[in-house]
């Protein structure tokens, strides 16, 4: 943890919301990127980023100052996203019949951060992964964490992370290889929630 973060954490633990606002400013882009990659939606990513910081403030009294603040924050964000996926899965099940009937095709604006067709396909494939596998991919590939660091954030063993990364890569390769074929199928059939 940087000295600046350390001081701000200390003040936040004493209830100083101005100090916590500085912490939010320092880490907001990192958390937004994570929540966007986990949800594929700007609106949900913003809500989850906000939820992450509110939870972090509520729990900051339990933060061990010797730990890295960004890792701790990451852990809160990942778990918020995983819970969001569960809620989303419940909503999905309720609406699945309707979605299947409508045979909704993905629109070009669905993932507004992507520029090319290839990137859009990659984002779609990422969203089709089970949430825990997606979290492993986001942490290890996008954020460049090693498996031990990712395991710490996800609250599981290093072996579990390695397995999730392996399984996720296998699925992504399969999906991206046959993406042109899968695009012809209704979108609702291709989602997988865990």
């Amino acid at each position, binding site marked *: 943890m940087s000295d600046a973060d350390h001081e701000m954490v200390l003040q936040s633990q004493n*209830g100083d*919301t*101005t100090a*916590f*606002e*500085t912490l*939010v*400013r320092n880490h*907001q*882009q990192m958390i*937004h*990127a994570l929540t*966007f*990659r986990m949800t594929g939606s*700007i609106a949900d990513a913003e809500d989850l*980023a*906000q939820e992450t*910081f*509110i939870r972090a*403030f*509520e729990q900051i*009294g339990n933060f061990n100052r010797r730990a890295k603040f960004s890792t701790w924050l990451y852990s809160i964000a990942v778990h918020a996203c995983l819970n969001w996926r569960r809620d989303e899965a419940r909503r999905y099940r309720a609406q699945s019949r309707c979605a299947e009937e409508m045979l909704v095709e993905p629109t070009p604006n669905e*993932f*507004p*951060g*992507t*520029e*090319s067709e*290839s*990137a859009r*396909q*990659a*984002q779609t494939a*990422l969203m089709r992964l089970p949430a825990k596998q997606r979290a492993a*991919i986001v942490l290890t*590939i*996008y954020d460049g964490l090693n498996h031990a660091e990712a395991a710490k954030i996800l609250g599981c063993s290093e072996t579990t992370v390695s397995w999730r990364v392996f399984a996720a*890569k296998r699925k*992504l*390769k399969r999906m*991206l*290889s046959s993406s042109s074929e899968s695009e012809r199928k209704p979108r609702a059939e291709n989602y997988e929630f865990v």
Partner: protein
Amino acid sequence: MTDFELESKLKSVSVPERPLEYWESFPSQVRVQLRPAFAEQRQKPFLPRLAWGGGIALACLFFALVIFPAINTAIKNSRTFQKQLAELPHHLRVFMADEHGMHYLIADQ
């Protein structure tokens, strides 16, 4: 597809850009929501602690007044039984327990 190709493809997905105003206003938006959260946080801890403390105190009282005397009596009765058994090994004995404690009857062989 190799791992390298897959990672390159995944990394081609960029996070959408947000306007500068968004980044400037986001921390204060969070801060506005922290005030009620912090007030709740300061009020909350007392009640659960009180409930846990009261519950543990009641459990200790129950153990001291009910369970411990019952265990103690059972141990005493067991010792008496062992003692009498050792003293009168060849007699027919009947042991009884009532509100006055342990009794035994001895019969000639």
